């Protein structure tokens, strides 16, 4: 029990100060029937550092890690190279083991990072302000729908068919209980996005239209006409970005009129981690800031007149407003926001643009090569680093067969949309800077073999 510093002698001495004869005296308020005596049956005793590391290492080795295989998975989580200094810096104990910065005089490090993060996120997404992060992209998306309801006092949200189906599921779960009505259809395997259909669906009850950019099939569309139509109806446009690296190359949603832009920040600095912890990005126009959920860091002055930072506008939050709070969220993804911010600082504008151009270039090469595989067609006209292939048979089976050959070949639409069998032959392929020309060739040949 190497983490527990008290010795038995300490315990005896402390018990005498407390005035108790044994530790059991301190648990007298627990009803007799609920007290456990001895340890719980079936659970092992403490183990050495070496033994635990061996056990966990054995479990880790049962997984095929992204670095061990030609890797093409995306659909809301992306493998990018994270510079070594990012992980080094977030492991500094003063960041890693710090608490929420409620005592700002001794939390300026975290607070300044959050202020810088908010500025980076707002600029990247093309918005006026951003918060200090949410749990992940999917929960940020749901919070955006709730925020649109509060602002417009309407409760019908129209979700694009190109929105990540898990994000749709999360919104559906919450809507069952909040009373929002959500309109959503599964996508069709076409090059065009559903912008026209979304515009046609807007009415006077619409609180917001939620559109993903690039969408789940990797398609990109100009959001300006949609923004105009949404605003004409007195509703809000919510844009969802699951691959923020794309914004190094394409026009950000805020610039095209989106009122709230949310996103998954995992791509920059965070790493795959089997789905979490991830980083929810949340930005909006200045006029809506008091309806924004989550933590905010703001600039101020200290008693000696020096610039400093504090958490602010907390009158929106649960610990002040209880049941009238804008959200029940009480945390942020602080450490992930730090990783994002460090990685973004290392990149800078030039680095981000270089990275985006590299991602796109490799993706174009891959799309052209894969479209030559007999029986395979490329669905997309436009894309950034992710596109959809139409295979001649169920892509779930193809993905499983590729995995058996040690190739992680993409995400099947059948896995993402189990209720839409017409999408079953779709395969979403992501290509980042971690993919080599050889990886592309390996994937193409493996699909050829599998389809032959």
């Amino acid at each position: 029990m190497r983490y527990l510093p008290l010795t038995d002698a300490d315990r005896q001495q402390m018990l005498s100060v407390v005035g108790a004869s044994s530790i059991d005296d301190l648990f007298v308020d627990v009803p007799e029937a609920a007290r456990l005596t001895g340890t719980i049956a079936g659970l092992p005793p403490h183990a050495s550092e070496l033994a635990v590391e061996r056990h966990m290492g054995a479990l880790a080795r049962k997984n095929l890690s992204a670095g061990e295989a030609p890797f093409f998975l995306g659909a809301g989580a992306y493998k990018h190279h994270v510079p070594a200094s990012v992980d080094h810096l977030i492991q500094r104990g003063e960041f890693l083991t710090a608490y929420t910065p409620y005592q700002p005089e001794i939390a300026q490090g975290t607070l300044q990072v959050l202020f810088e993060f908010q500025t980076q996120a707002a600029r990247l997404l093309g918005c006026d302000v951003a918060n200090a992060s949410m749990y992940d992209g999917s929960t940020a998306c749901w919070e955006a729908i709730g925020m649109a309801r509060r602002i417009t006092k309407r409760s019908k949200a129209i979700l694009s068919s190109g929105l990540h189906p898990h994000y749709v599921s999360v919104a559906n779960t919450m809507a069952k209980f909040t009373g929002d009505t959500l309109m959503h259809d599964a996508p069709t395997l076409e090059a065009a996005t559903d912008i026209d259909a979304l515009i046609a669906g807007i009415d006077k009850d619409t609180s917001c239209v939620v559109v993903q950019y690039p969408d789940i099939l990797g398609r990109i569309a100009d959001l300006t006409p949609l923004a105009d139509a949404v605003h004409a109806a007195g509703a809000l446009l919510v844009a969802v970005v699951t691959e923020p690296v794309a914004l190094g190359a394409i026009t950000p949603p805020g610039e095209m009129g989106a009122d709230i832009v949310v996103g998954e920040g995992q791509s920059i600095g965070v790493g795959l981690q089997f789905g979490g912890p991830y980083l929810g990005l949340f930005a909006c126009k200045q006029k809506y800031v008091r309806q924004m959920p989550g933590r905010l860091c703001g600039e101020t002055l200290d008693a000696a007149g020096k610039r400093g930072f504090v958490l602010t506008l907390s009158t929106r939050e649960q610990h002040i407003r209880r049941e009238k709070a804008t959200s029940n969220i009480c945390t942020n993804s602080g450490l992930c926001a730090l990783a994002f911010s460090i990685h973004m600082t290392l990149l800078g504008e030039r680095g981000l643009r270089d990275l985006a151009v590299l991602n796109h270039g490799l993706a174009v090469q891959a799309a052209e090569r894969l479209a030559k595989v007999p029986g395979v067609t490329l669905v997309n006209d436009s894309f950034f680093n992710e596109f959809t292939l139409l295979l001649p048979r169920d892509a779930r089976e193809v993905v499983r067969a590729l995995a058996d050959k040690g190739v992680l070949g993409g995400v099947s639409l059948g896995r993402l949309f189990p209720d839409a069998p017409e999408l079953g032959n779709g395969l979403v392929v992501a290509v980042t800077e971690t993919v080599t020309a050889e990886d592309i060739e390996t994937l193409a040949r493996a699909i050829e073999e599998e389809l032959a």
Partner: protein
Amino acid sequence: MIMFKEDRPTSPEPVKEAHMAPATVTGNRALMLEEALIFEIGATDTTGVDFAEAPKVASRLGGLERKAAIGLPGLSEQETVRHYTRLSRQNYAIDLGLFPLGSCTMKHNPRLNEKVARMPGFGDIHPLQPQSTVQGALAVIHELAEWLIRLTGMHSVAMSPKAGAHGELCGLLAIRAALEARGDARSVVLVPESAHGTNPATAAFCGYKVEDIPATPEGRVDLAALQARLGPDVAAVMITNPNTCGLFERDMKTISDAVHAAGAFVYCDGANFNAIVGRVRPGDLGVDAMHINLHKTFSTPHGGGGPGSGPVVLSAALAPFAPLPFVEKQGDRFELVEEETAGEHHGGSFGRMVAFHGQMGMFTRALTYILSHGADGLRQVSEDAVLNANYILRSLDDVLDAPFGGSGPCMHEALFSDKGLAEGFTTLDIAKGLIDEGFHPMTMYFPLVVHGAMLVEPTETESKAALDQFIMALRSLAERAKAGDEVLKGAPYHAPRRRLDETLAARKPVLVWNEPEKLAQAAE
């Protein structure tokens, strides 16, 4: 109980300063360096990364190529390392010293946990990889779930909630789904005064009307008031046990039985589970749903505000309504169930709460911590946490008012109030004074049931020497505040910043950095 107070630590005389520190032209103070914002020192054409040259291809960006500059300054690699290293030194952290935050539980973060979470087999796997390639990861989720179920004596566990408050949402959604499944529309959730601040917000988000239940003068739920309020409109009671006054709710089983008899469910806020782990199972107390803050009870790093992780243990009555996805063991194979299918535990799920499967990086850390402690170690954890808290309570109750000091032993946190301080002195002054003494302040002004609350939670990973030094500092501050030492009102004096103007920040919010010239134009 008999009190032996002669062993209490006492306060020595303050250390005298040799001389006043002279000002410096840079604002730096030797190893403490002021640090500008990246927007003030970086440039958009500076970068700390190198990339391979991009292939020359015809763009497929659909005519949406970015035109305007983003405005993201970059730094070289060394400048980046310096920027963040300097900033890190302006933070207090558990690696630097005691973090006596009641209800927030800041304890040692073992580095083995970090090492394990970064193993490529855990850190570098995609959430949508074919299941044959992630059997070890699914085994981790399953193994951790087993521990959580056994330690709490509950039926099953939902692993995906991303934080404590998200877990509360999960528990209430399961309750609402269970009620709807039996065609029982109920509209009210009862929340005792001693519950956490997120509880009412969560209940309201699930569409419930929130009603408070008062606390007794002893600091526990008023059982009679609760029983009197129960009725066919009550969906659930959200209770925190041990509660935020630091006390065990003795009547928990009676409360649960009454709630169940009224057809409602018991939600327990499990933020304080570390006080009873290995000694009490919430399942034995009649709890239907309880979230477990993995970062608190099982030590995953707080990271300056997150991420957390809030799995929710569920009773048999609520288990069928748990969110998707979940992990099932089928022979030697683990399956991630992402869709609703018919079967014993299926068919009633209220849906999905998050994309993917929850905080995997926290699961590996928590499981590593649990295996390191084992069942015997976890029991020792709660014992030492409770002993440390009572040691603090009894070492300070002669200089600080302990409002519930007579209500029995405290659990893992000791509650004091500002009663008895000199006129004009507040809890805030004591907290800021602690900063100058090299400690992070305790939790202030919470719980709300006590005026000027100071909630101290030492945790089990503090040594007696660390506690004695903290007690000494707090005694001295209490004595100064009682004696009306005006100097204390200006604290902190030695932190990177003096007291910060929070009113200014809220009245004129500046949430992003803008170029000074832009600000000047706006002011004109």
